[in-house]
């Protein structure tokens, strides 16, 4: 019962973290699912967002403006990956890794050479803070995050129903077809990467505020967490949620579940150093299951059409 009690005590924090990282997971969904590009820029652009946001806020910039700047910094990172990929012929994964590596240095520059920049909740007007995660008040980060996510999902839902958004979906679905329909796929992919990394950086800016510091390593493994959220959301809700907006909601719920499970295993006594190993194993398993599902019945029944 103690365990349950401490789990319940910790869960508002886990839910808040899930929602914070859910914003990033939506960014990952845009590239991984819609554009069909595995973009590893994320690990770097998350920290870029955190660094830009915290440094600007410490300079007295309004937190919303700082967050907007974080978005733009992330979008620039996405643009670099996009240009490396579409204009230099570098495979998307490698382009992302290159940007991510470069961003490590850039992020240190942004934070004036320090690996870590703190922001004090007493001195600054933070949008979200861990301190209020348990409180029943409007300061509770869950309130702002819920509104923010609702608006974000509504905006993306609107965008992907527009001509340009449809062109982006078509590019992810079939580049040949997209080009035959007059879509400049190179540019569309670049814009998609910018949008995605912009969102990831916003997530980074909010995560940094929530935990009270930006850290040059805060994005390590972010892509895997993002994939975990996307996959958990899909496994649990793909039957029920067919609408695009609901699919994005599923991604956020996936991130929340991921953090709740993490919370649980930590309470059960898992060494926090082993968390990344556990995450990688879980994601590998979830990625493998659909493959096995497709492969096994084919062998047994000897039928079923593979699809691209």
């Amino acid at each position, binding site marked *: 019962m103690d365990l349950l009690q401490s789990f319940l005590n910790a869960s508002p924090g886990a839910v808040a973290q899930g929602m914070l990282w859910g914003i990033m997971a939506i960014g990952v969904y845009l590239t991984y699912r819609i554009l069909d590009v595995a973009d590893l820029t994320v690990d770097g652009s998350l920290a870029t967002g955190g660094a830009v946001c915290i440094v600007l806020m410490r300079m007295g910039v309004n937190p919303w403006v700082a967050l907007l700047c974080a978005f733009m910094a992330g979008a620039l990172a996405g643009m670099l990956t996009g240009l490396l990929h579409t204009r230099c012929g570098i495979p998307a994964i490698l382009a992302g890794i290159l940007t991510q590596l470069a961003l490590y240095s850039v992020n240190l520059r942004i934070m004036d050479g320090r690996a870590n920049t703190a922001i004090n909740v007493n001195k600054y007007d933070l949008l979200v803070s861990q301190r209020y995660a348990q409180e029943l008040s409007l300061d509770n980060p869950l309130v702002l995050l819920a509104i923010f996510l609702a608006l974000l999902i509504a905006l993306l839902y609107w*965008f992907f*129903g*527009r*001509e*340009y*958004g*449809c*062109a982006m*979906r*078509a590019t*992810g*679905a*079939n580049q*040949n*077809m*997209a*080009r*035959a*329909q*007059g*879509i*400049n*796929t190179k540019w569309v992919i670049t814009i998609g990467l910018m949008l995605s990394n912009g969102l990831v950086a916003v997530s980074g800016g909010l995560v940094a505020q929530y935990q009270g510091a930006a850290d040059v390593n805060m994005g390590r493994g972010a892509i895997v967490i993002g994939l975990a959220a996307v996959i958990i959301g899909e496994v649990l809700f793909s039957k029920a949620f067919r609408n695009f907006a609901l699919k994005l909601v599923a991604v956020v719920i996936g991130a929340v579940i991921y953090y709740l499970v993490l919370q649980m295993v930590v309470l059960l006594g898992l060494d926090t150093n082993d968390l990344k190993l556990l995450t990688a194993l879980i994601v590998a398993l979830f990625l493998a299951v659909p493959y096995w599902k497709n492969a096994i019945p084919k062998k047994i029944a000897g039928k079923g059409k593979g*699809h*691209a």
Partner: protein
Amino acid sequence: MLEIKGIYKTFNAGTVNEKIALKGVDLHLKEGEFVTVIGGNGAGKSTMLNAIAGAYEVDDGSILIDGVNVTHLPEYKRAKYIGRVFQDPMMGTAATMQIEENLALAARRGKLRTLRSGITSTERENYREKLRILGLGLEDRMTSKVGLLSGGQRQALTLLMATLQQPKVLLLDEHTAALDPKTAAKVLEVTEKIVTANNLTTLMITHNMRDAIAYGNRLIMMYDGKIVVDISGEEKRKLTVEQLLDLFSKASGSDEANDKMLLS
């Protein structure tokens, strides 16, 4: 409408895999001409179509569509003038998108894509009508994902998409080759209907000599990167498969007329 002047294309130039695919192709298509293209494997048929579409640039020569020099335009910019149906039914449509969304994408071919609605209700009604003409029952499944359709249905849909906005040139790259005979016949029938109704300038590659003779008002045969036979008008109407085989062996200067790719 389409003017090809002396185009050359070599793949993997300077390597052991060097392949000269086009060796100076000249072709002039008048408006409304429906040309069937035949030739053995490696004759350069698909290379010519892809060169027109801009999938790759030619090494030499020029391509003009309706007077516009498109030789150096990237594929997506040429799309404004060109409707295409590929051999692979998977290639012409976005499988994860709905039938009506695919049509809406095609309706905006060559136009600036903005933040206007991706598909309007007037468009939907228009698409429903057009799908009804195909006679495949797709008008009742407009919100189905294209991935759920059969190969034949996808080719018919791609054909409709290619012609939704009247193209200056319609390129059909063996678009019935991956289909079973019955479906292929159906898709060809739809092709003829659409081409005739819109008076489309069309290039259709086929491996089937009977189809090459039965459809269109002009026939060209390619061999070794060149156009070796060009027949139209009355002569084309009277053409038989035997004559065609004969023409082929003369043009290629060998007995390769029995090339099994040509006999079907």
